[in-house]
């Protein structure tokens, strides 16, 4: 259905368990380069769990076990010799709730590149990231203010800028707009289109319109299983599975 040549990430038979409870079951999924992949599905179906497995953020949750492989350009992220810190340099993440550091706006964006010794002028890097995240105009005169004084929507864009400043290859977003008003949401969606030129994006969303508007591919999950995966157009207009159709047309549950 999808050409598999330029897959950046590939989940193979991935099963993730919390204790004994399997939250993700036998998922096979390819993430394509410079495309936006949306993951949709009812609450608790395992979207966040699957997303976190792509940059090893599940490592921080106790009692998580994972089977299968996640290949990143032919390397399994979970191989013995792979350093999870390095994995996260390639795979940036934006969380569901804005979580800026309780520090200045500048420090929020600059901290990651600084501790990792990324090359180039840090001021330019911060400015570039803030511009990409469509926040620069609003904060350029108060970079030393606390990030906590920003509005929720601004904070979320700051978190996006923080991820962008690292220039990762893939950006993982877990419902980045769930705490935002329609205006901020629209701005972030615009931003996604721009980012697509240079980045590969995986976005979890509960918003069907958003998924159909912004994504190239859509994965539909239900109780841990990947039910359907394909072109967004196809998934939303000609779903192959009855359950997908019920969900995307709102007849679910």
């Amino acid at each position: 259905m999808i050409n598999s040549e330029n897959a950046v990430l590939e989940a193979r038979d991935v099963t993730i368990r919390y204790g004994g409870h399997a939250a993700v079951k036998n998922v096979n999924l390819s993430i394509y380069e410079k495309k936006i992949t949306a993951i949709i599905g009812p609450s608790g179906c395992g979207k966040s769990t699957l997303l976190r497995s792509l940059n090893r953020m599940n490592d921080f949750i106790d009692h998580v076990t994972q089977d299968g492989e996640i290949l990143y350009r032919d390397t399994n992220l979970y191989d013995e010799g792979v350093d999870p810190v390095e994995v996260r340099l390639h795979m940036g993440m934006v969380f569901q709730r804005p979580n800026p550091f309780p520090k200045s706006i500048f420090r929020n964006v600059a901290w990651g590149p600084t501790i990792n010794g990324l090359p180039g002028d840090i001021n330019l890097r911060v400015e570039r990231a803030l511009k990409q995240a469509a926040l620069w105009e609003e904060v350029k005169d108060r970079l030393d203010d606390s990030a906590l004084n920003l509005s929720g929507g601004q904070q979320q864009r700051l978190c996006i800028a923080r991820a962008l400043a690292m220039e990762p290859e893939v950006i993982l977003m877990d419902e980045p707009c769930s705490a935002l008003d329609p205006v901020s949401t629209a701005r972030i969606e615009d931003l996604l289109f721009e980012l697509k030129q240079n980045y590969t994006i995986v976005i979890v969303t509960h918003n069907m319109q958003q998924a159909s508007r912004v994504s190239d591919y859509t994965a539909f999950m239900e109780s841990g299983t990947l039910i359907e995966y394909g072109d967004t157009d196809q998934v939303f207009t000609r779903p192959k599975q009855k359950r997908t159709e019920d969900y995307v047309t709102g007849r679910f549950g």
Partner: protein
Amino acid sequence: MKISPSTNGDSLGHRSASLRRRHVVASLFKALCIGFTLFAVSVLGLLIAQVGADGLPWLDAQFLNNFPSRFPEKAGVKSALYGTLWVVSLTALIALPMGVLAAIYLEDYAPASRLTRVIEINIANLAGVPSIVYGILGLAIFVRFFGLERSVLAGAMTMSLLILPVIIISSKEAIRAVPSSIRLAAYAVGATQWQVVRSHVLPAAIPGILTGVILALSRAIGETAPLIMIGALTYVAFTPEGPMDEFTALPIQIFNWASRPQAEFHELAAAGIIVLLAVLLTMNALAVLIRYKGTQK
């Protein structure tokens, strides 16, 4: 099931008997709370007034600068005050880094294993062990086994044992209060654990940690039993020059004066209590200041 409003459109002003009863109970409870608070505060006020009346006349530069003496008019707290300051400073130097590092380990590094749980529960229990027990331990280990004699160092190490559990527990709480979302955000930009702890966890937790440390040290200042146990002297006519010197401390000096028959010495004891309270209040003020500065940022 049909859902309908329970008041069914009645107008206001028809308070039911049950609601009236609940208001009465609420007022009674409030009166009870106020009563007991007033009682506690007035007992405290009375104590302070009594101590002030007895001790204030004796409180002057001479009292602070003289060593103890058989003659009340010549007696002072110099050696006891210095001894207390020595012990508290050394205790802080020993217990602060140990306690904070242990708390960081338990909160951020230790695996969530049964062993960790057992250790945490035991630390909590240690906080409730009577101080005299620490005195016995200090006597056996520091004074006898390590041969530190009745030195400031032996006293400080014993005090450190006594307050370590309190410091660990309050530091753990302060560290746990740092939202995990911040830690995760830091990891997500490629930080190592040490970078997360150093740049995000510690800075956010430090006000809470310091407040806990100072409160623990305040407890150490008032402790007498463990110091008597390890053999701190009751009559000292010199100030400690180093950690290996012998010493006395304020509560010991106060106890010593209070147990003499002459009334003048009882008044001296009151003056000593005022000095001890002043040291305590200074440290508590410091804790408040640190917390205030920490929350301002």
